[in-house]
Every structure is written in C-alpha cells, then in structure tokens.
C-alpha cells in the first residue's frame, strides 16, 4: 500500500503535467487561453483552500480577501513604488502571511458557523479597505498593473502566462500532495476527523490550524499576485464576498479533501459561466440551479462521487 | 397482547445492537427488561417509540403493525416513553414540559390531565413556573414520568428511571411507577437496578449483548444466580 499512495501522488501529478503540456495545442485562441489561465489561477487558490476546508476541516468564507491582498500588494509595490515584480510578489506573500498569522489564533478558536461568520467578516473588511483607499488602490475603478518580468524578460504573451500558471499549479499540487502524505498532513486531517483524538495523539491542534490557515492564505495571495500581473488591471471585486464564496464553491463542487477535485472544480466553475451565456437572461438562474442540483445529488463533490460510482461499478 | 415484538433486529452505525428479539407485553402487566449497560435495552425502547429504525422483524401494538409507523403516530396510538437521562426541554418551564407531553391530545382534555399530574407529583405543582433544567434529578424524573402520562398512554415505556438518583429517591420513583398499574397503564420497564425492577414486575426479560437470554416471572428471575453473573461477572 506504500506503492499505492506514492503512485497516486506522482501518477496524478504526472497526468496533470501531461494535460498542461498538451493543452495549448487544443486552445484555438486567446479566449480559451484566458479561460484556462483563469482556471489555473483559481485552482491554485482552491488547492490551498481545500487544505484548510477539506483536509483540516476549518471553513473560510474570506479567502478572496487574501487573494486580493496578494494581488494589490504586488500591484502597489510594483507600480507605485517601482519594485521589481518578483520582489513585490515575495513581499506581498510575506505581508499576507504575517496578517494571516496574526488573525489566525483568535479566528480559529471559533467553530462551524461562527468561524464562517468571522472569516466572512475578515474578507469583507479587506474588501472595504481596498474600495476606500482610493489613493493606493484606485478604489472601485481599479488600478492598472504593469506586466510581469523575470530576469529582465517581460511576460506578455498568453502562452508565457499559460506556462507560468500551469507550472505553478503543478508545483502547488505536488507540494500539497506531499504535505498531505506527511506527518504534518496526517495531523491536519486528524484535526478534521476528531480534534480531541488528534490532541491525544500528541498533535498541537492549534499550531497546525494556524499553520494551514497561513499556508492557504499565502497560496491565495500568490495566485492573486499572478492574476494581477496577468490581467494587468485590478478592481476590488477580486476581494469581494462573492469571490470568496466562488472559491469555496469550487472546492466543495470538486470534492472536499480532494486536491485534483479542487482543480476540476476550479476549471468547471470558471468555464461554466461561459457555457451558460447561451441561456442569456437566464444565465444566473441556471448557474444557481446547477450549483444547487450538483450539491444535492453529489454532496461529496464531483471527484469523490465519480470515484465512488466507478468503485461501485467495478466491484 | 398489547405489545408484540417478533424477530426484531437492529443495528445503528456499525453496531448490531439487537438480534432476533421476541418480547410480549400483555394489557395491564408490568414487564421488566434487565441487563448490563450496553446490552441494547435503550435501543429496544427507542425502536418501540419509533425513533430508531428496525433492520429486521416487526412490532405490533394492539394488533396493529407499527414497525414503520412514525413516532408521532405511535404516541397517538398510546405509546409514551420516559427516556433515559430524562431528556427534558430544559430551558422551558415545568408546566410547558407537561403541556408538550399532551401535544397529541385535545386541548380541552389537557387541563384535567395536568391536575391529575400535579396531584400525583405535588413537588411539580410547586415548581411549575421554574425551568426544567433547574430541577433536582429526582424532580426531573418525576417530570419525565408526568410528561409521558400527560399523553394518557396505554403503554408506558420507562428507561432507567432510577439512574443517577440517590437510593431513597430511586425507590420512591419506582414505587410511583408500580402504582400506575392501578391506573390501568401497562408498563415496560428497563432498569440497571435489577432487584428493584424485578421485585415490582410481573415478568422479566434478561438481555445480554443484544439478545434475550432468559425470561421468567419477576420473582423467579430475582432468585436466579445467572442474573448476578450478568451484572457482576461472578
């Protein structure tokens, strides 16, 4: 069974890498590239968020706040202070990590709906600040972000971004899978399964909850930073309550405690609105309906439900 | 037979709690079900009340098959339970707890039932405005019995009425229970306190690990050495 976990870990990453490597030849134009790149960015957030929600069992309805903070700090440092983008990105991650660390302890003492409320409030506070600090962020009208450059090489082609985001996603997934299959990851999952039993096994549950909260916040911020440079323009809607809900929905839709589920969830929910445009006025009605029906009939999410179904069929 | 349980099995979660149980209770009897903790006694009462699903077998009440009947329908048919641990509506007043006991009955009948209940348990009348959570253990047990009687049941299920009570209070509660027989209520009693339970019962069943291992008159069981073994492991 050692072989099994390792195989699923590297096998999955391999399949993902192959898909990422081959996909560009099937993308006819920049629109498809855009959808795929946005899916990838969302997937990075969702993999991190799934570590928090799906694996450690701590809900967050405010992760778009971290996404937006990463995006804006990168943008502000690059454009207002003239820092090199890569340095801005690093500093942005540090800022978000510190902030997440500072609020993690009081927030993660809460449970269930109270935790949901607190993280939601946190996200809303961040989004209001982004809206109000017009001089810094451009307020609701947004701010332009200069393009990303690495070692003097500017990334401005869609394909360039595709490789950056694709590579980041593969590494994120790989790291996440590594983490899950380590003592740290087992401790996290144990926190979800039974906090008291985890403590009895010697797990300092508070420490691990804080750790994973910070990790997921940093991943969200990283994705946000990529997004900022990729689109070249930021508005505070990136940090809104809706975006937070969207991320959580992606995680739950793909499947809790399923890293690849998060990738699939992110891809589906990014692409779905594009499909639903055929319903014109009924686009949102259909979107709400799809959300409800999927969760009613597949409460465990797409990938786990699919896996159960295949298992049932084969056995 | 008022209550007939035929070949009943039940599991909840991963535990097979009951296996092939056959129990009969006739109109007007007091029947005790004794056995050690975890033997499945409470599960059986929950099944009779319809709050726990049956895996196999059937339950008849007064000749009607109630195996799949909803819990509220069973109360209307005349089955009331005094659950283990009292299960008060703790933040609500004593009187409200009693009133809810009569939830299935006509409004105009409640008044007299309430009066009867207060006559039986004068302490409850004194404390009728207090919240149930503030009562002592014994008073809570009285309230639990009173609440079940408010439904004017034909069959009363008593689950561990003496649990956690000081011996004197426990005896008082059990005496009260036996006096209900005079009020034409059939009683099915589950007790850890085997002596007390069997001494006031007409008949008894001994449950061990989810199976009925013995059934006899209360007196015979009381004198049976096997009972002692089931409890004290000797």
């Amino acid at each position: 069974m050692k072989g099994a976990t390792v195989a699923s870990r590297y096998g999955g990453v391999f399949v993902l890498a192959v898909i990422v490597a081959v996909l560009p030849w099937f993308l006819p134009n920049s629109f498809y590239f855009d959808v795929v790149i946005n899916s990838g960015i969302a997937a990075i957030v969702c993999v991190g968020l799934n570590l928090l929600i799906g694996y450690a069992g701590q809900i967050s309805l405010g992760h778009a706040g971290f996404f937006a903070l990463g995006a804006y700090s990168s943008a502000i440092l690059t454009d207002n202070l003239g820092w090199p983008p890569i340095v801005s990105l690093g500093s942005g991650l540090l800022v978000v990590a510190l902030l997440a660390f500072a609020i993690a302890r009081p927030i993660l003492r809460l449970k269930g709906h109270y935790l949901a409320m607190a993280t939601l409030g946190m996200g809303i506070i961040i989004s209001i600040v982004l809206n109000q600090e017009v001089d810094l962020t451009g307020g609701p009208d947004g701010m332009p972000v200069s393009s990303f450059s690495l070692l003097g090489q500017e990334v401005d082609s869609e394909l360039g971004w595709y490789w950056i985001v694709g590579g980041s996603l593969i590494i994120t997934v790989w790291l996440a899978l590594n983490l899950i299959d380590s003592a740290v990851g087992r401790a996290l999952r144990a926190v979800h399964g039974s906090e008291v039993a985890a403590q009895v096994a010697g797990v300092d549950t508070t420490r691990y909850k804080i750790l994973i909260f910070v990790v997921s916040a940093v991943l969200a911020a990283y994705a946000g930073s990529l997004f900022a440079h990729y689109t070249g323009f930021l508005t505070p809607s990136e940090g809104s309550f809706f975006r937070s809900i969207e991320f959580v929905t992606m995680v739950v839709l793909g499947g809790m405690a399923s890293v690849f589920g998060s990738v699939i969830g992110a891809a589906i929910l990014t692409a779905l609105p594009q499909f639903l445009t055929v319903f014109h006025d009924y686009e949102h009605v259909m979107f709400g309906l799809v959300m409800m029906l999927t969760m009613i009939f597949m409460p465990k999410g797409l990938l786990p439900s699919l896996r159960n179904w295949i298992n049932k069929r084969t056995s | 037979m008022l209550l007939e349980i035929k070949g009943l099995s039940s599991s909840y979660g991963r535990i097979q709690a009951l296996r092939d149980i056959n129990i009969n209770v006739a109109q007007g009897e007091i029947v005790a079900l004794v056995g050690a903790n975890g033997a499945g006694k409470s599960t059986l009462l929950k099944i009779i009340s319809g709050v726990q699903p049956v895996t196999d077998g059937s339950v008849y009440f007064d000749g009607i098959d109630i195996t799949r009947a909803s819990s509220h329908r069973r109360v209307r048919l005349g089955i009331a339970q005094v659950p283990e641990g009292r299960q008060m509506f703790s933040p609500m007043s004593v009187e409200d707890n009693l009133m809810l006991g009569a939830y299935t009955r006509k409004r105009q009948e409640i008044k007299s039932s309430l009066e009867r209940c207060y006559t039986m348990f004068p302490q409850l009348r004194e404390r009728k405005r207090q919240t149930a959570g503030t009562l002592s253990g014994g008073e809570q047990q009285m309230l639990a019995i009173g609440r079940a009687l408010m439904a004017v049941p034909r069959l009363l299920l008593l689950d561990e009425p003496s649990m956690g009570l000081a011996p004197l209070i426990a005896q008082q509660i059990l005496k009260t229970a036996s006096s209900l027989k005079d009020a034409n209520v059939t009683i099915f009693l589950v007790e850890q306190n085997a002596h007390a339970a069997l001494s006031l019962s007409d008949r008894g069943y001994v449950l061990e690990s989810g199976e009925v291992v013995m059934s006899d008159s209360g007196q015979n069981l009381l004198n049976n050495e096997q009972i002692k073994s089931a409890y004290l492991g000797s």
Partner: protein
Amino acid sequence: MNFVRYICTLIAGAALALCSFIGIAVADTIKIGSFLAVTGPASFLGDPEKKTLELYVDKINEQGGINGKQVELTLYDTGLDAKEAVTFVKRLISEDQVDIIVGGTTTGETMAVLKEIEKAGIPFISLAGASVIIDPPKKWVFKTPHTDAMAVGMVYNDMKKEGISKIGLIAGAGGFDKSCMKNAQALAEGAGISIAIAETYGKGDNDMTPQLTKIKNAGVDATLFCGFGGPSSIVTKNYAQLGIEGPLYHTHGSCSKGFIKGAGDAANGVRLPCAALLVADQLPDDDPQKTIGMDYIKAYTDKYGSDVSTFGGHAYDALFIAVEALTKAGTTDKAKVRDAIEATENFIGVDGIFNMSESDHMGLSLDSFKMLEVENGNWKYLY
C-alpha cells in the same frame, strides 16, 4: 440512478452549449460585440443599456441593416466583474470575431479591458463615465457619456450663479460615486467652492441619516450628492426629513425617472445636470436633440413599458456612432472604421452633439448638458 442521469444531462447540456457558441461566424453579417453589467450592483446602468442595444439592433435590421448587411449583436453580462469583462472581450475578439465593441458599463470594467482592446486593435466605444478612459486618448478607445468632471463643473457653475460657496458632499462606495467625489474635490478650488465635509455610505445601506446629520451640523449652503440607483432616493428623502438648509444637487447619475418615483415629494427642488433626453418635450422646437430624444423615448417605452434613463441613451449614442462609422467606412476593416469614428462630426445623439477628433475621443462639450430641476415630481428644464 439519479446521479448518472444527472451527469448525462450535464454533459449533454455542456455539449449543446459548446456547439452553439462555436457554430456561429458563418453568415455575412456585421458583428457588434458588447459586454455590459446587466446584473450585479450596476445593473441599474447595464440593464437599460442592454435593452437599448437589443431594441435598436432589431430596428436597424428591420430597416435593412448597414450597407445591406444584417447586424448581429453578441452581448455578454459581466455582472460588474472586471475579470469577466476581460474574458468576454477576449471572447468577442478572438472567438466571436466581432467587428466593433460597444460596451463597458462602468469605468472599472472599461479600464480593465483597454489593454486587450489596444493589443487586438478593434474599435471600442465605452459607455462609462470617467475621463481617464479617453484622457490621454488611446487609439482604439472612444466613449459617449459625459464625464463626471463635466457634471461637477456644470453643478459648480450653477452653484456660483446661486451664490453658494460652502458645500457638503455625500457619495456612495461605487466607482461612479468615488470618481465623482474625487472630481468634486479636485475642481472645488478652481470654482471658488469650499467643501466643508465629505461623507460616504456603504453598499446596501438603507438609511443615510447619520451622514446627513453631520452635513447638516456642518452648516453648509448646499449639498452635492454623487451616486446613482436606490441611494439617490434614500439620500434625497433623508435630506428632506432632516430639514437641511440649502438646495441638494445631484449629478447625472440620478437622471432617471426611477429617482423621482423613489424619492417622492422629497425630490422637488433637486437640481442636476442631465442629457437633453429627459426634457426632450420641453426643449424649444428648433433644438436638434428634440426629435431624436422624443423618438428614443417612444421606442423604448413602447417596447419595454418602463421609463427611459440617460444610461440607455449612452448606449443609443454609442451604437449609432458605430453604425454611422460602419456605414461611412463601407467596410468592416477595423482601421477604417476606427478612423470613421474619430471623424464623427455633428452627430446628434441623445447625449448631445458629438464632434470627435484625434485629441477628443468623446466629442461632447459642456453645453450638451442641460440643467434641470425637479418640480412637482417631474423634470423641469432650466437652461
């Protein structure tokens, strides 16, 4: 089995959707693309814009199209999400291969897509207000609405006429509100106006009494409100209830009948700059905007049964500037169409008379605004 059936339906639906959005681009038509915030917090603006575009594209086709070609409108709803706006613009350009884009309800969405527009080189007429969109001018980008700076300038002129010097400001949290407030603060000094107090309210607020109480206590001569939608009515009502001295000014964000209906009697006395559209019937007969305004009002109310707002008017102007340019250019060649738009001259729209140039990609002058006052629950044309 529920689950299987569900998955099948989902896949079938997706396939259907895919086919329908790949399988266009055949007939020889002129394609106009649009992305609007039809839903979301700015639906108040985006919804009439969408209705106007759909209404007039149908009319144009009934009348034979442009240069004999039918017009096809591809319209996406962004829900006021800049990210969606960028994706939709990429889709319009690379997938739907439209010839021109008319859209962008708000400044944020418009600004977000400019990079894409410039890169692809496609004529684009924005429906958003802020001057930053066309200042400095960008090769492919045009816009129709008056800027909020113009509206503020118009209000300040009127204030000076009325002898007002000390004012209070109240604005919402949205892009329009913030930009308007910023302009009001920037332009105040030059206009000889001092801003004693500036207050804001939040998304979804139902009562602005606390903010207005502070304005009242600041002892101002007049108050300028920067915002639109429901809050226009709430602020106006609260203002009247608190009995604040001095007139209340709004900007063109309140140029819709919905504002008066919402505010009721409290709206009386509010002064605001609007496009001529709202008072088309009161304009002198020789005013060139009179007929076009009256026609638009009739067409819109006949079709949708609801009152016109000037926001739909922005879409009307943008659409017809595009149509005129396409007609004149006689081709869908993007560079030629762009040049034709830049050459727009004396185009009479509901927003005013447009004269575009290389340095002016909006083409409206301050006199295209009309100063109105609400009187007896109706617009009154002042000057």
